[in-house]
C-alpha cells in the first residue's frame, strides 16, 4: 500500500501495523513520536495500530536546535 511519510509518498508492505512499519524502516521506537492522520499514536499502541492505504504519517525525533 502507499503511505505519505514525512511528506513523501512511499510504498510499504500491505496490511501491517505501525509497529511493523517502524521495524521495516529500521527505526528505534523508543526515540520517536508518530502522528497518524494528525493524531499522535502513543508508543504503547504501535502494535494495535493498523495502517491503511493513503495514511498520512509524521515520524519525528529530537535533533540539535537552539
Amino acid at each position, binding site marked *: 500500500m502507499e503511505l505519505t*511519510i*514525512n*511528506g*513523501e509518498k*512511499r510504498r510499504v508492505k500491505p496490511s501491517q501495523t505501525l509497529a511493523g512499519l517502524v521495524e521495516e*524502516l*529500521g*527505526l528505534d521506537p523508543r*526515540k*520517536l*513520536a*508518530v*502522528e497518524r492522520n494528525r493524531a*499522535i499514536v*502513543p*508508543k504503547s499502541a504501535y502494535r494495535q495500530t493498523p495502517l491503511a492505504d493513503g495514511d498520512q504519517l*509524521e*515520524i*519525528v*525525533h*529530537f*535533533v*540539535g*536546535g*537552539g
Partner: protein
Amino acid sequence: MGAEKLVVAGRSFSSRLIIGTGKYQSYEENARAAEAAGAEMVTVAVRRVNLTDRDKPMLVDYLDPEKFVYLPNTAGCFTADEAIRTLRLAREAGGWSLVKLEVLADQKTLYPEMEETLRAARLLIKDGFDVMVYCSDDPVYARKLEDAGCAAIMPLGSLIGSGLGIINQVNIRLIVEQSSVPVIVDAGVGTASDAAVAMELGCDGVLMNTAIAEAKDPILMASAMKHAVIAGRQAYLAGRMAKKRYADPSSPLAGLI
C-alpha cells in the same frame, strides 16, 4: 554558595546556564561544549526522521538524555497551533512535559509573536505542560505569561543569534522585580560579559546557543560562559558597590611618612 539552586517546575538545577544544541560542527563538539559549560539542560528541536539516510548521527547518542534534561523547543513555529502540535509530539517522543515554547513572528527578526505565544502557553498549560516561554522584554506580557502559569519567563536580551547583548536592562530588571517564577534571559548573549550582565540584573539563568557554537573555540567559550554565569550570579547576590562620580582612595591616609 554552591548551595542555592535554580528551581524550574519543581526540578532543581545546580547550573544556571542552559545551552542550545544547534549550529555546532558536530554532535561530538556539541557534547564537549555541554560538558565544558556544566550545563544540565539543553534545548532540542523536533524534526522529521531522515528515512533515506539511516546512518546519520543521532543527538541522543552524544548527549545522553539521562544526563541532560532535554528541553524541546518550537523553533521554526510561527503559529500557536504549529507550536502546540510540535510540543505534543515532543512529549510523546521524550516522555516529559517540561518544554520551551517559542512562537516567532518572522524569519528576519525571529521576534516573539506575543499574542500567539500567550495563546499557546495557555493551551499547553491546560494540557499539562510545564512551559518555559521565550518572550519579548515587555514586562506587561511577562506578567500575563506568569499569571497564565508559565514555569519560567524567558525574555530576549536582543535578537536571536545577533550577539548584541542585553539591550534593555531596565525592562529585564522590571521583569525580575515582578516575577515569582524564574526569569531566564534567552537570546542575545554574544560574549561572557553579556551573560554576567544578565545575571547581575537578577536573572535566574541564561540560555544561549550561537555565542558558544559560533565562537572560534566553542569548547573554551562554553567554559567562559559557565564562569560568567556564576560570576554574575554571585555578584548579584553579593550586592555591588555604589557608583561614585569622583575618586575614593583604597589606602589609608593616616601614617604616611
